[in-house]
């Protein structure tokens, strides 16, 4: 038996899901989308039930990736029962989706979550009346307290029904639906006709007929059919709400939002929170990385060197272990810390507040507030950040965002900055690199917003109430994210590391060094082996650092390079060319042209910045 959890974003669906399934959750990525769908299995009375947590959506008629995916799944009858999760506090808006799901005639139950919050606010909901109106079982639950959660599956299995309620649409719409249900041979259902009126469906004759009718209605009502439908549904939802909800004055909650959303102190607070997040990742990350790297040195690498193996076998094993060392050294200390903090920021609902506060400044760069979310994500890893661009509107906005995100210093680049600059030169020098990158990002954004053709669509983003995140959910979310990171990054890292080792073994590296050395030496003032390190930084950013250490033959870099050389090396490798995975995802999401353009631009940027610093140091203007 398959059960789908469907509901608006921020209604506590994921928490219900994790209550129902426990561990053993599978994240699947549907082909052609970036939408993650989580599913898990639960055993009730000796039968297994497959539960799927669908992405949060506002409507089944919408155009976003999530909405389209959920609609397709619902239309193809992928679930035996749907559990519609509604937010009891914002019931009216949530009823809109319930009414839409009811149209699909799939057995369902309604779960009114956040009952505890509603009670606190003095909202009383007559679930019996709602059940009577809609014809489906209604449960009042509280996922945070775990109240009534255990009833969901039994009720879904035994009492789910298709419901009896039908929204009374505008008479023109009803007439059009009646016409359409007759027009096509294979007898479209009511819901198929309604969708066809909005241009959604696969039946060509039906769509053709619907197009003519909806065109006429559009003329007559002076608004598109989808708006008429939305209006009617909202009206129906509002009527139902009036019949079932009674409100007594409840406890007024202290409005933390009064602080967070005002320009002052909201903006300083936001900057503070983001900065402290970065610093936390930086310090916690460097601390644990050192531990992990050292542990590897002592327990694995030293015995390996002492084992006196065949040189080729040694080289391969060594590269392999180095890769695991680097991967773990980054993944857990830096990326995991970042995702942990990120999950807290997301689950409290602060992320959308950041988007609101940043909207204005992002408009300067031809973007809007929502684009700040992938940019912040990019601080962890650029790859998921670029996949998240899809959600932000027009081609122009995606183009600009892709450029800026690839410049955002991800955890791997943090490793370079922390490992080279902060350790050997000093904290201020490390911060100055961040500032240079920030300035370049701002500058790039300003220029791109002037030269990129296309139109701009703004942001429409729900700002959910602030909530205390649950520790379990935060850990789970961070774990799922890091797991994905490991799946993508680790194999690539191992392959490229062994590849690098073999190249070194057969002397190809020396040839490459000799070819690129003049450029690197004359323009950037770096020693020849730095060029190889830079090159391998393309595979994975932090490998630039690791390769440099390997090629320099010592972990104490100042022995072989001056401070200014280290600084230039860190700056260039942070700026120039995104890593292979980022280029690959850029190519997949934005096309070859953009991927090539961004790569070339960053190479240019990296070398220019490096050259400028080299020139300055020659003039004796630095340090």
């Amino acid at each position, binding site marked *: 038996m398959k059960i789908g959890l469907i509901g608006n974003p921020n209604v506590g669906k994921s928490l219900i899901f994790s209550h129902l399934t426990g561990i053993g959750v599978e994240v699947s990525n549907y082909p052609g989308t970036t939408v993650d769908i989580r599913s898990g299995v639960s055993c009730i009375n000796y039968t297994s039930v497959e539960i799927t947590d669908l992405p949060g959506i506002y409507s089944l*008629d919408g155009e976003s990736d999530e909405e389209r995916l959920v609609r397709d799944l619902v239309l193809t009858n992928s679930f035996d029962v749907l559990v519609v999760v509604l937010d009891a506090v914002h019931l009216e808006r949530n009823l809109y989706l319930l009414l839409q799901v009811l149209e699909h005639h799939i057995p369902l139950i309604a779960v009114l979550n956040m009952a505890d919050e509603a009670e606190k606010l003095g909202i009383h909901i007559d679930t019996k009346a709602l059940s009577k109106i809609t014809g489906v079982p209604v449960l009042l639950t509280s996922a945070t307290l775990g109240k009534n959660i255990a009833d969901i599956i039994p009720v879904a299995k035994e009492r789910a029904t298709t419901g009896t309620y039908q929204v009374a649409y505008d008479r023109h719409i009803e007439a059009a639906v009646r016409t359409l249900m007759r027009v096509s041979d294979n007898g479209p259902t009511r819901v198929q006709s309604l969708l066809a009126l909005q241009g959604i469906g696969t039946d060509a004759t039906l769509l053709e007929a619907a197009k003519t009718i909806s065109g006429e209605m559009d003329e007559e009502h*002076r608004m598109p059919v989808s708006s008429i439908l*939305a209006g009617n549904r909202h009206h129906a939802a509002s009527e139902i709400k009036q019949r079932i909800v009674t409100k007594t004055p409840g406890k007024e909650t202290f409005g933390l939002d009064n602080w967070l959303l005002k320009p002052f102190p909201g903006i300083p607070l936001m900057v503070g929170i983001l900065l402290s997040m970065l610093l936390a990742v930086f310090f916690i990350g460097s601390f644990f990385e050192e531990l992990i790297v050292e542990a590897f040195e002592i327990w694995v690498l030293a015995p390996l060197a002492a084992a006196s193996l065949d040189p080729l076998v040694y080289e391969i094993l060594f590269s392999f272990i180095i890769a695991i060392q680097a991967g773990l050294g980054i993944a857990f200390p830096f990326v995991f810390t970042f995702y942990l903090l990120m999950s807290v920021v997301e689950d409290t609902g602060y992320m959308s507040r950041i988007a*609101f506060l940043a909207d204005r400044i992002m408009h300067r760069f031809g973007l809007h507030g929502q684009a700040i979310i992938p940019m912040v994500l990019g601080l962890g890893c650029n790859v998921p950040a670029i996949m998240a661009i899809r959600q932000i*509107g027009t081609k122009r906005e995606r183009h600009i965002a892709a450029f800026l995100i690839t410049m955002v210093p991800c955890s791997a680049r943090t490793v370079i900055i922390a490992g080279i600059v902060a350790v050997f030169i000093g904290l201020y020098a490390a911060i100055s690199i961040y500032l240079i990158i920030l300035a370049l990002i701002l500058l790039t954004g300003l220029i791109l917003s002037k030269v990129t053709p296309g139109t701009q669509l703004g942001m*429409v983003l729900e700002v959910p109430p602030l909530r205390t995140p649950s520790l379990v959910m935060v850990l789970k979310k961070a774990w799922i994210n890091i797991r994905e990171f490991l799946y993508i990054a680790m194999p690539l890292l191992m392959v490229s590391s062994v590849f690098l080792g073999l190249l070194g073994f057969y002397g190809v590296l020396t040839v490459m060094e000799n070819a690129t050395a003049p450029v690197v030496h004359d323009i950037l003032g770096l020693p020849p082996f730095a060029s190889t390190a830079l090159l391998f930084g393309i595979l994975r950013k932090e490998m630039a650092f690791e390769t440099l250490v390997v090629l320099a033959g010592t972990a104490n870099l100042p022995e072989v390079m001056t401070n200014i050389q280290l600084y230039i090396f860190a700056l260039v490798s942070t700026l120039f060319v995104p890593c292979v995975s980022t280029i690959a995802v850029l190519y997949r999401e934005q096309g070859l042209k953009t991927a090539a353009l961004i790569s070339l631009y960053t190479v240019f940027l990296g070398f220019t910045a490096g050259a400028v610093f080299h020139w300055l140091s020659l003039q004796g203007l630095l340090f």
Partner: protein
Amino acid sequence: MVIAEREDTLLSLMRQAKQTGLGGKTEDIACHTGLSEVRVREILSDLEKTGEVTHQEDGTYHLSPAGIQAAEVIMRKHHVLETFLQEMLGMDHELAHAQACTMEHHATDDTINRLRRFLRKDRGCQVGCPAFTGLPGHHGYMGHHGRRCAFKSLADCSNGDKVRIDAVRGCGRGGRLADLGLVPGERVTVKQRMADTLLINVKDCDIAISPEIARSVLVEVEN
């Protein structure tokens, strides 16, 4: 209806004079105005008494200077009303014309003057609202003219304003707006304004919207 019939007769004569330079015959006027010839004759003799129309020997009627002035006042009213209906309310040209034809007789001078000021003010603000013409996916079903800022849009609201949505223009995010409850007739509270970005409350939910989107939501202030 006496006023309407009188004014229609005057307008008909005016039109006749403009088109042909000649006076109007009873049957022509009856044809234009849709009145019976008997009725037209009655009205004309009435108008002759008040000195707005003169009766020529060849049986045609001409407007006197006073008549011309009266007819021009009505023409002006008609024009203002038609412009308002068509450009501000987005009515179809034919419909706007037909409506203006009946409304012109009842609108007082004061109403017309106010409407004219309103239209003029609106022309002035056209420059300041480039987004009204440049919005992507603007289907234009709310009228084909750039100047639609006569209505207040959400972008013009300040902290704490309580408004009711009049219309949502079809921009790219129209669907999402409608799903979130921003449909005509819905009540909205502006909770916080950050520069031009708005945080609004619809159906007890907070929603952040960018300025260009706020501009596409036309509202009416409630209190």
